[in-house]
């Protein structure tokens, strides 16, 4: 049986750690300008970035740091109300990757955004909008 030497093991642990934190790094490195286009293509039909403007989905203005299901005037699903999520870049990343996995029973009709770079860009854009 072959055992990796300590240097290889350290490299593997580092690589695994890097993979594990990839979403965190990715959104930090996102490009807001590209994210605006991603938002236009993926999100804008159902979400506005104007405060108080709800569509089929709630306004995403100031979403970072907001507790889920708290936008006034929007009728959330029971699942979202019970999710106890406070939106952070990491939570947003996980949610838009697979909405139904993070909030089973939620009503957002969106399969998910697989492209990690697109997610990083759109999150950077969300964070840039005041």
């Amino acid at each position: 049986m072959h055992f990796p030497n300590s240097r290889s093991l350290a490299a593997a642990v580092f690589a695994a750690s890097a993979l594990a934190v990839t979403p965190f790094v990715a959104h930090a490195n996102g490009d807001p300008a590209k994210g605006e286009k991603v938002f236009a293509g993926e999100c804008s039909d159902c979400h506005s970035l104007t405060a108080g403007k709800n569509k089929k989905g709630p306004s995403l203005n100031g979403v970072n740091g907001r507790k889920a299901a708290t936008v006034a005037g929007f009728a959330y699903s029971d699942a979202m109300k019970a999710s106890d999520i406070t939106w952070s870049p990491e939570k947003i990343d996980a949610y838009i990757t697979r909405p139904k996995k993070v909030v089973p029973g939620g009503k957002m009709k969106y399969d998910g955004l697989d492209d990690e770079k697109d997610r990083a860009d759109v999150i950077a854009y969300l964070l840039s909008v005041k």
Partner: protein
Amino acid sequence: MRTLHTLLRLFAACAALLAWASPAHALPSFARQTGQACTACHIGAFGPQLTPNGMKFKIGGYTDWDGSSTWMPMSAHAIAGYTKVRGSKTAEVDKVNSDRLNEASIFAAGRVNDHIGGFVQATWDGIGHEWGLDHTDLRLVDARSVGGKELVYGLSFNNNPTVQDPFNTLTVWGFPYTGSELAGGPSAASLIGGGRGLEHTVGGLTLYGFLDNSIYAEVGTYRTLAPRTQVALGEGKDSDPGRLGDGTIYWRTAYFRDLKRQAFAVGLFGMNGGLHSRGAVDPATVGNFHDIGVDAMYQYLGGREHIGTLNTSYVRETASSQGERGHLNEFKANASYFYRNTYGLSLGYFSTTGDSIGLYTADPTKSPNSRGFITELSWTPLGKEDSWMAPWANVRVGLQYINFQRLDGEGGSYAHGNNTLFGYVWTAF
């Protein structure tokens, strides 16, 4: 038959419910109901060409909403235009070179609850100067999980085959999306293509399902309304197409993919029906019809700055009447480009070929063949999220030209004489 009459009465009751539920003081629309801009559901921010979001809204029975709107949408639209037919300088043709109100409609349109929605359109015909019931599509919908996949399914009560179709490739919602009421066109068309006058003279019930946002299937049947009912709904006394037989079947399947920044669909569809003479209906216009078609569409949506669409369909009809049997083939294709959902250019091609039988041509020495091109430029300044008076005020200004290469078997000056320029202003609110 009794069941069908019951359904037709239910159809009328639902229409009345939609109209009754619309308070006169409100003018909301689907955009008001969902809180979305027109661009969310319509290519070019206006008109019937649907985005994937719009297709799903329609399949969902027009019931999606923003969770706070409390009134039933009412809408209206009007199309005014100038029509110039190239013509042969005869007095008859000169009469149609005019500027006038093409049509005006009011709609009761929207959701009743999470499972019932639809629209009822009443239209003032600016040429015939009369009101009539126009397109109507009322839905009963639900959704459930099947094998971990979402299945949206429902019933559509409607008054025109293909008015319920979510794609813009079939007859009712196909290109061109508006046109002059004065323009000429091919005399021959298939049953499903509107050639037998079923538009607004029938009542239909179809069952449909949409699995996993990708597989669409629909089947249903139609019956012609009683002649007196047709007249009561605004159709002319001579509009009765005859009695549709009990075996009339409409069907449609499609595979659809919404990739958010692009989308495509391919499908098959068809309609079989027998029309029987009754009353004053000319026996020469009735017969048995078997239509089968294939269609496809592609949309590039990107970041909604540059949008391109392609739509195409082909219908093959086999028809028989009074000992004659023949075929008709209809092909349509069109492409459009929109910049920022504001400036649009659309190009279309149409072709009809067929046999010289009585169902397709009044003169057996002529073929029913027609073909031509349609070019349209449009400007849609409103309809975006940040537009003035959004979503209440909407307008499109357009210029459309139909160039006939052949019309009803004739080319040359006859075909070109029907070339039509139509400049229009289309408003909706």
